[in-house]
């Protein structure tokens, strides 16, 4: 069977494309970094791929709301192609700036099969600043999300200034009811962060760190799974190594596990 093909967007200030492509390759896919303009001008065809990745970075400098201008550019030029890509049963993941972008495109939350309307937002962190730290994430076992299958908890880094998840109450209730809330910030022992900084690093409503659409095939999250592509990425890896040396068991998922799930989705 030929490898699952992954398109990772690049250009215009996006900056996690190399490690994202690397992580997908490590997960068994064949990834290609594609400049946004190459997709728009038709040099590269979206229909040749199975997974579309909106990665991290500062597209257009994030000057008018994170991910906004990227969404405008894509919607204006290839909005329909993206919709038909989704309709074919393919996967989409938006990470950090990519999450912000697909929320602005309206691909998420995808309520009532509407993939065009903005109904949730990622806005400025309550702390009023950019923050880079690791967080612990609790995974909703009942969510449809293809990406998080078999994971109960995962530690990942966050690196953003605009990651506070926000929407109105009725939307939030529907997301919860539909099990579209996939990832929530938690304390180190796995309890809910309950909005408390620094466990919830940005003041997200309901500790939300990632959501999916009702089908589970479109997934967006603020933390960076591609930045946990090697055991040495973990902030306490030297301690974990020491524990293993002295006979203590350590189990952990690398962020790549999310990508492996995505690749395996096409093999089932």
């Amino acid at each position, binding site marked *: 069977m030929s490898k699952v093909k992954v398109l990772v967007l690049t250009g215009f200030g996006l900056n996690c494309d190399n490690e994202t492509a690397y992580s997908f390759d490590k997960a068994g896919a064949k990834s290609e970094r594609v400049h946004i303009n190459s997709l728009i001008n038709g040099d590269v065809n979206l229909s040749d791929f199975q997974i579309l990745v909106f990665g991290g970075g500062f597209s257009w400098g994030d*000057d008018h709301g994170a991910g906004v201008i990227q969404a405008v550019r894509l919607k204006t030029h290839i909005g329909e192609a993206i919709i038909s890509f989704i309709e074919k049963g393919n996967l989409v993941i938006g990470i950090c700036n990519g999450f912000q972008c697909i929320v602005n495109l309206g691909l998420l939350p995808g309520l009532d099969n509407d993939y065009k309307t903005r*109904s949730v937002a990622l806005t400025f962190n309550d702390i009023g600043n950019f923050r880079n730290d690791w967080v612990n994430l609790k995974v909703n076992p009942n969510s449809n999300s293809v990406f998080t299958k078999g994971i109960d908890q995962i530690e990942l880094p966050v690196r953003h200034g605009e990651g506070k998840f*926000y929407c109105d109450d009725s939307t939030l209730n529907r997301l919860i009811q539909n099990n579209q809330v996939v990832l929530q910030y938690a304390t180190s022992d796995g309890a809910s962060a309950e909005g408390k900084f620094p466990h919830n690093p940005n003041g997200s409503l309901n500790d939300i760190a990632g959501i999916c659409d009702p089908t589970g095939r479109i997934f967006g999250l603020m933390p960076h799974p591609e930045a946990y592509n090697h055991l040495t990425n973990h902030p306490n890896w030297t301690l974990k190594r020491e524990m293993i040396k002295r006979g203590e068991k350590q189990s952990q998922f690398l962020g790549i596990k999310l990508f492996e799930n995505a690749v395996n989705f096409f093999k089932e």
Partner: protein
Amino acid sequence: MTHRIEITLKNNLFDAEGQGICKKAKNYFGITLDKVRVISVVTIDKNLSIEQLKTIQNHVFTNPVTQISSFEPIDIPFDWIIWIGYRPGVRDNPGSTAMEAISDILGVKFAKDESVYTSKRYCIEGKSLQFSDLSKIATELLANDIINQWKIYSKNDWNKNIGIGYIIPKVRLNHTPTVTLIPIEEESSLEKISKDRNLYLNPNDIPTIRNYFLRKEVMEGRNSVGLSDPTDIELEYISQARSDHCNHNTFRALFRYRESKDSEIEIVDNLFRTYIESPTLEIKAKKSWIVSVLWDNGGVGKFDDNNYYVITGETHNSPSNIEAYGGSITGIVGVYRDPMGTGKGSKLVMGGYGFCVGHRDYKGELKPKLHPRRLLDGLIEGVRDGGNKSGIPTCFGQVIFHPGYMGKCLVFVTAVGIMPSKVAGEPSELKKTSPEEVVVMCGGRIGKDGIHGATASSDIFSENTPAGHVQIGDPYTQKKMHDFILEARDKGLIEFITDNGAGGLSSSVGETARFSNGCEIWLEKVPLKYEGLDQWEIWVSESQERMTISVKKENIETFLKLSQKHEVESTIIGKYVNSGKLHITYNGKTCAYVDMDFLKSGFPQWEFDAVWQTPEERGLYEPVISEPKNYELLLLDILSSPNISSKEWITRQYDHEVQGGSVIKPLSGVYRDVYSDAAVIRPVLESNKGLVFAQSLIPIYSLIDAYHMTAATIDEAVRRIISVGGSFEHIAGVDNFCWPSISFDPKENPDGKFKAAQLVRSCRALADICLSYEIPLLSGKDSMYVDGHIPGKYGETHKISALPTIQFSAIGVTSDIEKCQSMESKFPEDLIYILGVTRNELGASEYYMNLGYTGINVPKVFPDSFKKLYKALETAINNEWVASSHGIYRGGLLVHLAFVSMAGNLGIDVDLNLVPCDSDYRDDTILFSESCGRFIITIAPEFKDKFEKLFNGLPYSFIGSVTKNPDFIVSGKDGKTIISLPVSELRSAWKKPFGDLI
């Protein structure tokens, strides 16, 4: 027709920016603001239909979930309103991206005189606020008069229908570009013009310049192209090239050095050649991993067979001192262009920073332009936006507080890149320009930015004159250019690449044309931000985000097409030739015609008298202090002193993990909150090799002797590298000197000869230590004139000179990142060892400084004995016998034991009788001496024998154990417990000064 749209968060959403302003107003000035709501204002200077406006309002400028917007002023409750916008000509990054988005969604183009401007309106609520409060907040918190304009409205001033009106900070110069001839009949006339035009020609250079233009063959040549007297553009070119900044005249000067005032004169001819170049070349001959040094924008070392790393360091002090944010963002974004312009171009993989400022809570009578607190905030934010938005991890940094930096702050920025060893089959580190290749300017456009540095005075501002000398880096534009350049490089389209930094095109074209031996530049082709620049201004402008690239004729079409794909502006501005001339025309008319070799010939060397006064001659001595009785309080106080305490709030604002290769992060430990010795990254994701990087900065030792300051600084950087698992065999350095003026003047600089002697001594230490440790200096930078004249209480000014400062950056390669080690203690019962000898070296220590003394026993470096220890530690870490490894740096043994313990959140129990010392010392000497060459190591008990055998014959000792109980216990020489504190108490003391900052 002008349109204005106002956007703000919905009323029920928390306004974090507004809240931040309330907090700062309270903390900085004690002004209580009840509430601040921020409105973003986008002013569009272009005719658009109502329908078009609706489209951009709904799709670009308003998030329906979180925001509301209006073409009328948004009505929000307020007692006062402050509006802040840019001055004309200041880089408005959000304005440019708004134009991109509008063009895109509407399918329209912006004409030359059409634009978008962004500004902010702050709606402020507060009881009994006075105009003076608002004025303070506007001028000292929100705006900087150099780049911003502002307005303050009371309730009565505000017209809710008109709002702020339509403010268009457009540059209108109404000026026809003119080349001016400079008469040279007399040397004095040239001197006068140099002064009038801020050319800063050195008076000693003037005869050389004048004689050149009077030479017969030169005059004939000039006549043949229609020129006679030198033009302003030619003199600007010469002035730029001869500036200390570009030509390093100070470091290339002749020094008459005396060891004391009656000693014989020793001549040091050229510090650079003697103490930097020649040691580095000597080391290069021994080390095959040194690829390229001393000529390019950065130095190049070997990472592995297929990849080279590139490193360079810069400072950006003067601009940052005036406009902290703009200065530091321009500094970091600027230094990132150096590796991009090294060899055929490298990909940026890591950045570092160092800030030296006055005390954050300074309450004295001096009134610097920016209070250190505000200055530091701006510096932090500039590096944050510059680094984060470039997608380059900021992996290491330091902050030093000292009153000497009140005159001028220091901003060090370091950049590391990586490039393939071969590009299109050719060695990537080599490049040259050849005749008939085209000169391409790539990236941003040219305005009056940065012309003549930060020297222009602010009184030239009017409503439509550009705020010329201020630059604001634009990481977005540069990131696009970076991606483009790498793709062009890999396609083999680049023959030569260099950045446009100081001196702009004048430097970049001037230097690249030396390879082909000449160029023809067509200045009218250069893309401008606005019309009306004189030819010389285009030539020397320091507008940012530009590279100069040489491209073969046959490749230019492909190159430009690729550039278009990345939406990066690239323009052919001339060609390289082999005429021996720098030939510039404007619309076909020659405006400069200078021999390429002119700059290399016959300019007089600078000269300095340097007279050292020994610390004894200066009256320094060891203070008379009896032994402290309360060591617990002493430890807690030192942990909460500004230079020791946690600055986690800065580190966390910096993305240090982007690119996915983070191995040792800036913060370590179970709570990820204690500083690591060094950073390690995996720059090539497929490889388990790592780059190890650290910086050190200990200027305070200059109070005693700049020689030992420099030696200790280098030794610290080396230990940082070794401590995390770097290899002693492969360490490269970058020296960044920041020195006060060394020109003696009886009135203006009475201690100039002493400062010159400090510089000579510092350079000697650099050479001595680097030769002994075999560290090549891959790159370096000298920044002189770190002095400022600061107004005092009575209308007088005070000259404040910085401490002679060197930041030393060290980089190395580790063959297996999985063997790297961090600094936190890891397991109870582990054994704690001290490596290295503690000496009576409390001079200028944190301990003495806290008690108000300097002392004289400055820490010294003994490289020959130290390096044996370092190599042994490297082996121990490689053999995986070590459970934690940490150097002992500023603050001494006690402070660093506290760090190890806090990071592991485990206790320690140690006995000072066991610490290896060269004599019998008091407890305070052992605890606070800052002797170099030392480490704290913990190991699992099972490795005791192997570890001790390895260190047999070297100075080391077991001093105690890690304990499960998180108590920090130290017994003194008399066997009694002198410290017993919970680790949590250490942590809260350490976080006391800045722990609440985010």
